[in-house]
């Protein structure tokens, strides 16, 4: 926990001062069992050779050379496909208990609380499956392009992966966010950490072929065909409607590559649609078919789910764009600051309408704001990392971030969002996130109106 005495290299010569502030308070409150456990823990720490303590001469980690400095290391290709360090076993995709009852129609959340920069490691990319995931044989996978009417497309065609991968390709970095990200929090605080509040969010470099190129190869009639239906090859054969404008402007592409390698099966191997700025459900995985048509399709995931309930009792249909949003990831809910002093406060900002222009951070619950540093180059419809310096004085604080995109849209507060959309919308919650820090250093999830 936030036990300073266990921090590596922390010089603390008096071994009797091992109790944390919280432990002292617990003992003062009469919880003797806490004290016994603390003694046990401290005793174990003192006899454990690896938990060596600093002495007056200095840090034993410096004075006594560790084994990795005095022995032969492992040879190349010990792990032909590299894996994270044995010390990195804690940041994993996780489910939110009780959220769903069937693992095949569920979500696993990305551990944003421990990630750096803007690229999500492929193995930690969030998952959302509608009928389980499949590992599709690329040699047997086909992409079909047809029209809802023969007049809309001169030649309905079939492409193999061999053929798609011969075509001119693009590589672009884009965020993907589920429309229901932060959906658990519309009415009130419900989950403890940024993994569960914002973890249906990832960002990768995708490589593939612009859909425009394929549609034109099939002889599309843009005047007649104004909508695109994308369909998956899995059991659910998930479908969503996409406006032809996004295809014509070259943004939408069929991707096979992700972060330099092929897509992972959980992310649609060997082919998925990339629809920048639009919610993840439209990025159809295991993409088998594209149909062009003259009307939207009202598919299950745009007529039963992914519709936003308003206070009027109406549901908004075909909501697709992920509006400008941000969140501080370090420090964030369920974490504890180790001690007073300097911290690099860091977070992510993104917008489905383009580039992030500015991110402001407040340490007092939104009364005053300071502009954070943006780590460039800022990409279109991609995660954008921001950082800001902070010296924690040990007093309570409420941290918030507020992003502004290139259209001038400013991320709203919970009060502003609820005034228009109420609390039952489920989808598209882009409110400013607040993290409260108390004297012990513990950070928790709160909502500031």
């Amino acid at each position, binding site marked *: 926990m936030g036990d300073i005495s266990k921090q590596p290299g922390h010089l603390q010569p008096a071994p009797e001062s091992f109790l944390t502030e919280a432990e002292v308070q617990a003992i003062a409150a009469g919880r003797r069992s806490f004290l016994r456990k603390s003694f046990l823990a401290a005793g174990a720490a003192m006899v454990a050779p690896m938990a060596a303590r600093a002495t007056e001469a200095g840090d034993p980690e410096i004075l006594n050379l560790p084994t990795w400095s005095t022995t032969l290391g492992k040879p190349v290709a010990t792990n032909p496909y590299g894996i994270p360090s044995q*010390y990195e076993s*804690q*940041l994993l995709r*996780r489910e939110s*208990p009780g959220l769903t*009852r069937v693992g095949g129609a569920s979500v696993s959340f990305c551990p944003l*609380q421990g990630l750096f920069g803007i690229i999500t490691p492929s193995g930690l990319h969030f998952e959302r499956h509608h009928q*389980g995931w499949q590992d599709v044989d690329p040699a047997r996978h086909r992409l*079909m*392009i*047809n029209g*809802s009417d023969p007049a809309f497309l001169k030649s*309905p*065609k079939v*492409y193999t992966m061999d*053929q798609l991968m*011969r*075509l*001119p390709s693009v590589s672009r970095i884009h965020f993907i966010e589920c429309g229901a990200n932060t959906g658990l929090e519309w009415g009130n*605080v419900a*989950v*403890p*950490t940024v*993994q569960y509040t914002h973890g249906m969010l990832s960002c990768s470099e995708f490589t593939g072929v612009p859909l425009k190129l394929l549609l*034109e190869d099939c002889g599309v009639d843009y005047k007649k065909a*104004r909508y695109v*239906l994308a369909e998956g090859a899995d059991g659910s054969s998930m*479908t969503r409607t996409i406006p032809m404008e996004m295809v014509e402007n070259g943004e939408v592409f069929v991707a096979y590559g992700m972060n330099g390698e092929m897509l992972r099966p959980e992310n649609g191997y060997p082919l998925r649609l990339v629809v920048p*700025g639009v919610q993840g459900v439209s990025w159809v995985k295991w993409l088998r078919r594209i149909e062009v048509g003259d*009307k939207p*399709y*009202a*598919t*299950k995931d745009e007529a*039963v789910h992914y519709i936003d309930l308003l206070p009027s*009792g*109406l*549901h*908004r249909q*075909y*909501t697709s764009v992920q509006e400008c949003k941000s969140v501080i990831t370090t*420090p964030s809910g*369920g*974490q504890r600051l180790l001690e007073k002093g300097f911290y690099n406060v860091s977070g992510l900002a993104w917008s489905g309408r383009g580039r992030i222009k500015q991110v*402001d951070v407040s340490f007092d619950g*939104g009364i005053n*704001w*300071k*502009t954070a540093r943006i780590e460039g180059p800022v990409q279109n419809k991609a995660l954008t990392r921001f950082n800001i310096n902070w010296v924690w004085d040990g007093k309570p604080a*409420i941290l918030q971030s*507020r992003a502004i995109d290139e259209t001038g*849209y*400013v991320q709203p507060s*919970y009060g502003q969002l609820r005034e228009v959309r109420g609390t039952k919308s489920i989808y598209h919650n882009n409110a400013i996130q607040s993290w409260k820090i108390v004297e012990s250093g513990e*950070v*928790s999830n*709160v*909502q*500031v*109106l």
Partner: protein
Amino acid sequence: MSRFSKSILVLALAGAATSAFAFDNFSGIGRLATPAEVKAWDIDVRPDFKGLPKGSGNVDRGTELFEEKCASCHGSFGESNEVFTPLIGGTTPADVKNGRVGGFLTGDIPQRTTFTKVATISTVFDYIQRAMPWTAPKSLKPDEVYAIMAYFLNLAEIVPADFVLSDQNIAEVQKKMPNRNGMTTDHGMWPGPSAAKGGIGNGGKPDVKNTACMSNCKKEVRIGSVLPDYARTAHGNLEEQNRSFGPVRGVRTVDGDAAAVSAKPAGPSAETALATNSGCLGCHGTNNKIVGPGFNEVQARYKDQADAESRLFDKVKAGGQGVWGSIPMPPHGHVKDEDIKTLVKWILSGAK
């Protein structure tokens, strides 16, 4: 090669690179789809019923089919909230008349079922045909889809018990859907052109506005909600969900002894993972009934039977009904025989 000829070559390559994208003849890439291929995959049905296959089905046939293929997850009347959100319920004959679900108007709707939300019956046909039943998607014939939908529509009091739904009358039924007037596309979150320009929505105008105030923006901080105590511990020990070094630590949310237990590498057994991946745990708990019996109950019933393994194998593979009540066990043809054998052994040995 002279310096001169080298630069000519570079220029030539650059020219090729810039023109590659404007290239309009991807010779050798793709081929025409045959009519049979398009027919095999083009199964979507639009709200104007483009793509709808011919066929029909009545309520009685739908009742049988639903009990056989659907009730194990959805409950006999589509009312179950055990595995998926309910299909039927929450609509009234008045809603059928008005095309707005009253519960949404009053805000008094305890559970949003499929029929309280969906405005277009085409959606229901499209989805059942492409994705149901859960473990055997795309196995229903059009007549079966019509029959199951006739059963739904009767349960929702939209059509009488002697109704026959078909491609001929489905458009009339769509005009009776209880939430048919309950959708709006007047918003800024459609990325195409606005309704005024022949598209959907308002052309991208946001509905919520904030300003970038920088100092003294408000007098006080109003906290609307804090993390409830139960939610602090409901996601396990947060200490184990953060690095053990760096600027922060995860908070220990489970007390010392319990934390030590949960810190053990208690990953699911291979069999548990197999049961999860095969979809068993959606309906059976290892120690509790969900839709079907708990594996502990199955073990207790079969443990002294010599042929338990082969009998259970058949039940899993082909499905069954009656041993545990009226809700049938669907067939599981998608699970490999060797996996079924592994699972049956695991269940009979206590499903640990």
